[in-house]
């Protein structure tokens, strides 16, 4: 299950995580985000080495602004506290795998 993370938890859950983290910036009103959710869950199940989290941009606008999120879904990959990759728009499972590599 992808973990819902808010602004206060972001540092500990994402930036200080030991393993690579895939972050899905999403919102409930966004059609492509709703399609992304099951793909993300599937990916999380099959990739236990990657931590998968979600950030609701409606509830956490300051986080979205900090990472210059201007289109959702936006999928960001963090390793050792640093953003190493980013994709915009709906991503397939294969796209996600390539993104975290």
């Amino acid at each position: 299950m992808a973990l819902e993370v808010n602004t206060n938890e972001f540092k500990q859950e994402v930036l200080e995580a030991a393993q690579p983290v895939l972050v899905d910036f999403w919102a409930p009103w966004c059609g492509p985000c709703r399609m992304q959710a099951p793909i993300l869950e599937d990916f999380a199940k099959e990739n236990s080495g990657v931590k998968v989290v979600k950030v609701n941009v409606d509830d956490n606008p300051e986080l979205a602004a900090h990472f210059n999120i201007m289109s959702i879904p936006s999928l960001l990959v963090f390793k050792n506290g640093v953003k190493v990759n980013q994709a915009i728009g709906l991503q397939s499972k294969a796209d996600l795998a390539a993104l975290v590599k």
Partner: protein
Amino acid sequence: MAELIIIGGGPAGVSAALYALRAGLKVLLLENGPGALARAHRIENYYGVSAPGTELYAAGLSQAAALGAEILHEEVLSLDYTGNFSVQTASNTYTAPAVVLATGTKNVTVKLEGLQRLEGRGVSYCAVCDGFFYRGKKVAVLGSGAYALHEADYLRHLAGSVTILTNGADVAAAQAAGFTVDNRPLQSVDGEEKVSGVTFTDGAALPLDGFFIALGTAGSSDMARKLGALLNGRFIAIDADGATNIPGLFAAGDCTGGMLQVAKAVHEGAAAGSAAIKYLRTLNKQ
């Protein structure tokens, strides 16, 4: 209410319609003129046919009409899903449980320095998806037709200001709708991390936070992307049956990429029409 709405009246759309009609479905076909076929002076590589593209287009529509399709000449502006698919045109809204996207590909594109680099960083192709991030900010819409006005109208309720940039095209429609319009040709989209503005060929700059692209008519990929369909680059991703990842949404023809040929469009239309029949039968049983 139609059971199947087909958007596009070319070989893919008509082929889907023929299969659906012969299976007894109520079909609404929305067409907006012969796109790529109009540019084909003569089709000579399609089985049994040697005719101008426009002639083939007209023959296809009459064939679908003869089998009972309702055919309307209307430009589609947007496609939404709320229990059923709802298709908005300039004058009406139509709903159906299944849709085939077959609008072909866009012949209107723009090459601007910085455009691709800033996609998702201020350059957007979807007002409904991204407008949220531009509340109170300064945005521009690139385009001059009904689709551009539709996108601009959505942004008008969110953004601080909306300017329509026609890049040399006619300003009358946008002005009549009450928008600020600038028709000077564009040179580049500017910004490092995100969009800071655009520069015109005359050297003048316009500071912006967001730059929305809405050239020509709403393409199949634009509509599919807004609903959350998977894309392959700028084309719609489909399986062998013409189905997208969204239940009830099918696509066929040039908008799925690959060979931009009548033969391929007809094949994919037939597949999508057949898959739509199966989908609707299963839906009715539930």
